């Protein structure tokens, strides 16, 4: 291997706290993010399970509710916290901050992130934000009830708007604001590292698509989280200082006139929130696209079909993501002309999305496909992305959205595309990089059982929700038994709840595989998948400074599989031209 000394060789820290808690090592920080997301995803799933149980058995007594029965407000609190924890603490952290932190520096041939101290601060800021948001459960009134979108005036009025709208909602706003700061710091580090710390020969055109995806995601985060931070600041002032940014005059809440506020605009919050919120959807899904491209190519033993188009599509999706926030607001009374523009721009996103899908299929076409668990989750990602994306085209049309907006159709749509598809991206990444991260293989048989339970499970949960939505079933109803026209739909709810129980239980299979393999899995070699990118050129797990002081030189693109004339069906990026063709 041709190397050149990095010059700034450094030594690993000694002592538990510097090594594992306040670590500056991007790999440890990546794992910290991953475990934060792992904790959060099980918490979020537990909340959704309680909601599903309540929807089917509304009279079931639950241990944690004071009177035994769940109130509609408690249901809304579960929903709010489920959404907030899943979107912020899972979908934003695991794919980007978790895997991005661990893998990105190694894939570009860097010893660490550009600013390790900043990186550590990003994680601990995020950790504090999780603690603050979750603490909303434990204050008087409990967790907020205004959903993860926190629309005012409900979110701005305080205690009078309902239980959870007092201290709980304040903690939510502060927690999310802290999260914005952590994400902004992280984005700075990701972009700078990618721009300035690439190894010799790692041109932009040779970066793995995972790196491209993390880069575009970081740019989205940099431009979007500042806007949410500003919105949270104004909302917080409305709540605790008595300003009227978002609270209109003349409100009457449970027979009490709200006299202390005038003239605010609830719509202003919606604009600010969705200007952040729509890019946020792509922050969740783009890293999954990068991972899907990466594993599909590796396990098809073929180069990614249309590498440049894939990069262009990532950029186009990122850019368009900032132009379509209004499609979340079709029913807000906006001008039909604005709605038309937002609708057109939204459907335009179908073009780069179709390019990506076409290229994924093109990558598979004629390949020598290895059905590893990672590959299956990668394929599952493509499937869910298409299914979830298609319903997006329905909702992008204002006239159809008018009917479907507050129904389960939207719940089905966004869960498939930004929830489950992104989760499949996380699973594909986990099964792919686990050997690198922990030096042992995950059990493939257990992995495949986990895949099939999860794949069939998520479709069983979310496909029927489309039909609930088409039948006019509203979202956010805690109890549907008192609504006549929803009665016949009850069996569908029953089916969904059963599917959810099975799917969530199946995640314990993953958890077992994860921790069992970490301890007792088969030892992983340096490059168990015969992959090409730089992380596979170093030991599993990698040494403290990744390349032991010898930064590799990169000679070729990231997906040189099945190159005609070469001995092996893959040529690593760092392999010198003289060594290509000889056995290695």
């Amino acid at each position: 291997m041709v190397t050149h000394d990095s010059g700034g060789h450094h030594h690993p820290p000694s002592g538990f706290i510097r090594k594992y808690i306040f670590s500056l090592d991007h790999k440890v920080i990546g794992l910290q993010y991953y475990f934060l997301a792992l904790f959060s995803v099980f918490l979020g799933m537990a909340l959704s399970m309680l909601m599903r149980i309540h929807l089917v058995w509304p009279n079931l007594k639950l241990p944690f509710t004071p009177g035994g029965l769940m109130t509609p407000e408690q249901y809304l609190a579960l929903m709010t916290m489920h959404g907030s924890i899943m979107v912020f603490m899972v979908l934003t952290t695991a794919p980007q901050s978790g895997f991005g932190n661990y893998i990105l520096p190694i894939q570009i041939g860097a010893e660490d992130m550009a600013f390790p101290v900043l990186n550590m601060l990003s994680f601990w800021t995020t950790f504090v934000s999780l603690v603050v948001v979750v603490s909303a459960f434990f204050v008087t009134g409990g967790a907020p009830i205004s959903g993860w979108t926190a629309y005012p005036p409900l979110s701005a009025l305080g205690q009078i708007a309902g239980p959870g709208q007092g201290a709980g909602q304040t903690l939510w706003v502060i927690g999310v604001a802290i999260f914005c700061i952590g994400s902004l710091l992280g984005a700075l580090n990701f972009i700078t590292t990618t721009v300035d710390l690439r190894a010799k020969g790692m041109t932009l055109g040779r970066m793995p698509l995972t790196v491209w995806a993390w880069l575009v995601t970081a740019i989205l985060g940099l431009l979007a989280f500042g806007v949410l931070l500003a919105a949270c600041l104004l909302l917080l002032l409305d709540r605790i200082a008595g300003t009227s940014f978002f609270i209109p005059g003349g409100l009457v809440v449970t027979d009490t006139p709200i006299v202390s506020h005038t003239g605010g605009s609830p719509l202003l919050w919606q604009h600010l929130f969705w200007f952040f919120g729509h890019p946020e959807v792509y922050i969740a899904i783009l890293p999954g696209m990068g991972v899907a491209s990466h594993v599909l190519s590796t396990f098809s033993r073929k180069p990614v079909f249309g590498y440049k188009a894939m990069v262009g599509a990532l950029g186009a999706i990122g850019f368009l993501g900032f132009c379509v926030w209004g499609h979340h607001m079709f029913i807000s009374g906006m001008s039909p002309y604005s709605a038309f523009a937002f609708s057109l721009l939204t459907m335009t996103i179908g073009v780069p999305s179709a390019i990506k899908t076409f290229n994924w299929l093109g990558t598979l076409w004629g390949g020598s496909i290895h059905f590893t668990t990672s590959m299956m989750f990668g394929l599952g990602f493509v499937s869910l992305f298409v299914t979830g994306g298609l319903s997006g085209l329905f909702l992008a049309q204002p006239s159809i959205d008018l009917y479907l907006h507050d129904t389960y159709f939207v719940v089905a749509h966004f869960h498939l595309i930004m929830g489950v598809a992104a989760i499949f991206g996380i699973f594909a990444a986990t099964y792919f990089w686990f050997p690198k991260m922990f030096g042992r293989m995950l059990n493939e048989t257990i992995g495949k059982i986990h895949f099939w339970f999860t794949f069939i499970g998520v479709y069983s949960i979310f496909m029927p929700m489309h039909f609930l939505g088409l039948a006019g079933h509203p979202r956010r109803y805690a109890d549907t038994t008192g609504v006549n026209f929803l009665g016949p739909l009850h069996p569908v709810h029953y089916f969904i709840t059963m599917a959810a129980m099975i799917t969530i239980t199946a995640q314990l299979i993953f958890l077992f595989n994860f921790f069992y393999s970490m301890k007792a899995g088969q030892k992983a070699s340096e490059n168990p998948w015969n992959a090409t990118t730089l992380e596979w050129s170093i030991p599993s797990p990698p040494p403290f400074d990744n390349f032991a002081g010898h930064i590799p030189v990169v000679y070729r693109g990231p997906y040189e599989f099945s190159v005609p004339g070469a001995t092996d069906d893959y040529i690593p990026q760092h392999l010198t031209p003289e060594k290509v063709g000889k056995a290695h």
Partner: protein
Amino acid sequence: MPGTITDEIEIIDAGRGGGTDVPAGGDDEGEGSGGSPGIPQRAYFTVIQLGLAGIIMFFMALTSSFLVRKGLGNDWVAFNFPRILWLNTLILLASSITIQIARRHLRGDEKVAFKQWWSVTTGLGILFLAGQFIAWRQLAGQGVFLVTNPSSSFFYVLTAAHGLHLFGGILALLYVSYRNWQRSRISQATATDVASIYWHCMDGLWIFLFALLYLGR
């Protein structure tokens, strides 16, 4: 499609990823870990530009809110613009000039003159913040508080947010003044340039906010 084995071999040096910069060496903040690797000095320029992009998005969100809130509401009442803000603006503009003079002295290796002008800049920054505080006191004296009217709400929010960012700039100036460069990953020249870029941008941002608040009040 799979390329031939040799077609890209000659393209080894990669633009900014060329990795040819000699790392600054030294450790990271001199803390116990033994530090982290050296990084090219250009990374500090990259990160400050990116950071400013993020900050601009934050202020653009507040600016949009200002315009929307003023346009949609019918309760907007103008307040007496504190005159001291004109003086504060001049002070901040002057600080941008003094920071340039300081940089020129550093380039000419005149360390003492650099230190003096750098300190003058820091002093002007602190003076600006004190002036902003006086403006708040004057408004409060007129009975104009954060919650009085959306116009005053935005005034306090925007000036406070800018003041906080400028305070960060003052910390950066002090860092440059008191840093031991022998133990630092960032060189004095880079730190000076990066702090200056940030300072000028906070100056420019203030001019923008001043115009917004004055014309839009």
